[in-house]
């Protein structure tokens, strides 16, 4: 199936000569999944505009739901979304503040403060991809009664791009220009055609804070703003009280701009403690309605679920646990730099060794015995949203085949059973952070590798060192002074543009950029670079999806990167709680839509 065929079929759906169901069925015949097919239709403008990722909201009136109690094992510490370093703070401030739109779990946009999602059809998106016009919802009021208007949106742009304010979100606002067209319309302008336009004013970094309360604190005095701890937003709940590092409370906002919402009269977010007891407080004792981010062994969760009070929610996202095979030589120093791009790895430069290594990773056992539901095995680096998932990759676990490949490539076993060729022995240092599931994964791989004549020396570094950006420390993951390493990389946005830049040649981590480049495996490929550049300017969503699939196939096909398992978000909630979760946005992104079934 070529791109032209796809386009023709989408055209037929638009004209009405092919039903949407028929389209999905035809694509399925070519091995494309149903979600991918429906999303292709959605992005090509041939599907109902409403996001399918948001379930129906049933309650017929506002309030009356009592108290909603959420439990976070990490407590929130401040309530300005633009200073929120971690997800806990983003989640906490998101209960009061709202962006123009949020990301639903299927990777589609859901309007919140916007009247509609801009598209080429409704004139919101410029054909040349250089501007996007947002129509704001009318009649929205801040919690203190003031009107929400385009001035607030423009102010958020000014606030965030000001380096003196030093916000975490500033990266989304530096390179854009925002113009107020009228009180309820703003236009975001880009320097060059931008296919991923839904960054500023969208999701966690796009939450709008009120101009009239932050205006006097939009400089170096930003931290003195009293509203940093006493938020006044537009959200479904109003601020009641906040003890940093402990409890946040809110109450129903009677003037909320969406009908019949919210359902609960008040909410409380309690922070602190540990993940296992948080799971207990929901699943076993039912003291709380919802427990956030439960990175707990699946076996424990299953045991707790047996009490039948609550259930575990698995929300698929783009985070992935994977292995990198170093392109450069970590044992050779060039100009005082190890793993320098001037070197090549003595063994991994042979594709046969990389292919054998990939075959020695038993992903299914890793899923089955270590991560359970919290880590489905995958053969792709880019897994979600489904429209970007490659159907072309396969992973296979076979020690026998790995042995054959190595034999053919001339890596012969020495007397101690370890393969060698031209004086290079297949003996690798395999590093990761200290974390029980990772150490167990390391052991599984080491065992298989041993049977193929490869000796792995396992190394584990404390997380606070491994993931730090300390330039002086040789054990950080960005320095990669090892042959192989394993960790999880996160994908916070539903668009893969930023996610996939980690294999472009200009992102290579070197001493020059203090190892801040994101291409840590140091893999360079002209075709990949070209595809990435093209995707940055490609406005056709179908073509762009094809480009990302190609990039995924290139990096996974090189075997320098071995995807292991994807890491969905795991949480627990009571059986009668109806929530709206999304891996592309905060847990509380649509808290106003949560209700209890009676």
């Amino acid at each position, binding site marked *: 199936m070529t791109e032209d065929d796809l386009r023709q079929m989408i055209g037929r759906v638009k004209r009405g000569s092919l039903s949407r169901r028929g389209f999905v069925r035809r694509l399925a015949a070519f091995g494309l999944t149903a979600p991918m097919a429906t999303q292709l239709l959605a992005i090509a403008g041939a599907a109902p505009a409403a996001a399918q990722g948001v379930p129906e909201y049933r309650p017929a009136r506002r309030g009356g739901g009592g108290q909603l109690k959420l439990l976070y094992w990490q407590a929130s510490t401040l309530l300005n979304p633009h200073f929120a370093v971690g997800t806990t703070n983003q989640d906490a401030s998101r209960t009061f503040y709202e962006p123009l739109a949020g990301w639903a779990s299927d990777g589609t946009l859901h309007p919140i403060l916007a009247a509609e999602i801009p598209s080429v059809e409704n004139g919101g998106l410029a054909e040349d991809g250089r501007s996007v016009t947002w129509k704001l919802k009318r009649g929205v009021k801040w919690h203190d009664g003031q009107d929400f208007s385009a001035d607030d949106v423009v102010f958020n742009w000014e606030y965030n791009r000001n380096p003196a304010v030093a916000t975490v979100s500033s990266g989304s606002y530096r390179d854009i220009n925002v113009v107020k067209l009228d009180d309820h319309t703003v236009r975001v302008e880009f320097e060059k055609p931008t296919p991923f336009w839904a960054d500023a004013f969208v999701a966690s*970094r796009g939450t709008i804070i009120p101009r009239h309360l932050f205006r006097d604190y939009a400089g170096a005095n930003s931290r003195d703003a009293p509203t940093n701890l006493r938020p006044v937003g537009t959200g479904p709940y109003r601020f009641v009280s906040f003890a940093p590092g402990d409890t946040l409370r809110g109450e129903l906002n009677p003037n909320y701009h969406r009908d019949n919402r919210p359902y609960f009269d008040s909410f409380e977010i309690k922070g602190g403690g540990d993940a296992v007891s948080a799971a207990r407080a929901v699943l076993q004792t039912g003291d709380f309605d919802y427990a956030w981010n439960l990175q707990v062994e699946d076996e424990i969760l299953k045991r707790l679920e047996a009490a039948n009070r609550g259930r575990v929610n698995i929300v698929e996202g783009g985070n992935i646990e994977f292995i990198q095979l170093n392109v450069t030589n970590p044992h050779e120093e060039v100009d005082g730099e190890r793993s320098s791009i001037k070197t090549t790895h003595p063994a991994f430069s042979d594709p046969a060794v990389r292919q054998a290594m990939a075959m020695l990773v038993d992903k299914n056992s890793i899923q089955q015995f270590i991560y359970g539901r919290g880590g489905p095995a995958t053969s792709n680096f880019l897994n979600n949203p489904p429209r970007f998932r490659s159907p072309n990759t396969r992973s296979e676990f076979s020690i026998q085949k790995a042995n054959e490949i190595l034999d053919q490539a001339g890596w012969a076993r020495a007397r101690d059973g370890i393969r060698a060729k031209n004086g290079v022995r297949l003996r690798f240092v395999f590093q990761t952070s200290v974390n029980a599931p990772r150490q167990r994964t390391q052991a599984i791989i080491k065992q298989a590798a041993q049977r193929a004549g490869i000796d792995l020396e396992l190394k584990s570094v404390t997380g606070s060192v491994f993931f*730090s950006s300390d330039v002086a420390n040789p054990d950080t993951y960005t320095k990669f002074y090892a042959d192989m390493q394993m960790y999880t990389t996160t994908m916070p946005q539903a668009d893969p543009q930023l996610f996939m830049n980690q294999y472009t040649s200009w992102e290579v981590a070197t001493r020059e950029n203090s190892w801040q480049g994101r291409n840590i495996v140091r893999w360079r490929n002209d075709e990949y670079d070209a595809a990435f550049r093209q995707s940055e300017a490609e406005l056709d969503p179908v073509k762009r999806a094809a480009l990302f699939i190609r990039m995924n196939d290139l990096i996974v096909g090189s075997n320098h990167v071995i995807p292991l398992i994807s890491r969905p978000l795991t949480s627990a909630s009571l059986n009668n709680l109806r929530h709206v979760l999304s891996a592309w946005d905060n847990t509380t992104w649509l808290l106003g839509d949560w209700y209890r079934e009676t």
Partner: protein
Amino acid sequence: MTQYLIRRLLIAIPSLLGISVVLFTVLALAPGDPFEELATNPAIPPEVRANLRASLGIDDPIWQRYFSWLFAMLRGEWGYSFVSRINVDQLILQRLPVTLVVIGASQVVALAIALPVGVYAATRPYSVFDQIANTLAFVGFSLPTFFTGLLFILLFSIYLDWLPFVYRTELSETGWRWWWEQLRQSIMPVMVLGLFQGAAWTRFVRSAVLDVIRLDHVTTARAKGLPESRVTLRHVVRNALIPVVTLVALQMPIVFGGAIVTEQIFRVPGVGSLLISAILANDTPVIMAVTFVFAGLVIFFNLLADILYGWLDPRISYR
């Protein structure tokens, strides 16, 4: 006496300075910064992180940061938390009431157990009561609080479903219901800490009383025909309490510092859990402030214990 006090206070200054230097250096050498989480987030460019670091002054040399911290401290400015962006003293004051109530109550419980049990066991040494009390005391202080805490949660919250195991500062109930809920949620943390402390003190009270009970003045009191209860309370316990009072005074900083592990298990938002979360978030100003307050309290209560000791036992004089 005044001279002695002044001298002790002067000696305290260099030790506090030394403590602060050590703390600051260790914290500065430790890996990580408050924006670590941003490092793995592809949506946040490294320049943004660098800008954030610079705005908090983390990139300045250690000695420069230390002196600016020290001078601010001398002016009474505690600095502000990197992660909460509010003043540290406010943050600590917010946590203090809970810590004082929970930990204070546990110390009262400990004393209420240790005194009667210890004294009674000492007056009847090697009796059945003494043997049982001894055994339980050994068990009590051999089991760490994080273990008994989990055991209590399993038993009272999960199997029996009597008590909640998440401590909430913002109870929605009012009136007597509020008191009832407060009591229910405080019992477990208070008991875990109180039993542990009580067990240790029981042993201490017992041996202190045993030391006094054999002295001549006790025999004299008995020879005068005084009732046994009067002998025990007036002549034995009062003398035996002198070392116990010192010990309790030395424990006072712990009351303020909170019980880190127990607070974490029961989610009690006290000073101890503030310290833990600050350490995990690399929030240097908060760690400095909390540990520094702790150091100051230790020095202060040491001094207080010394003075108290002289007041209880006039044979000791200060020069």
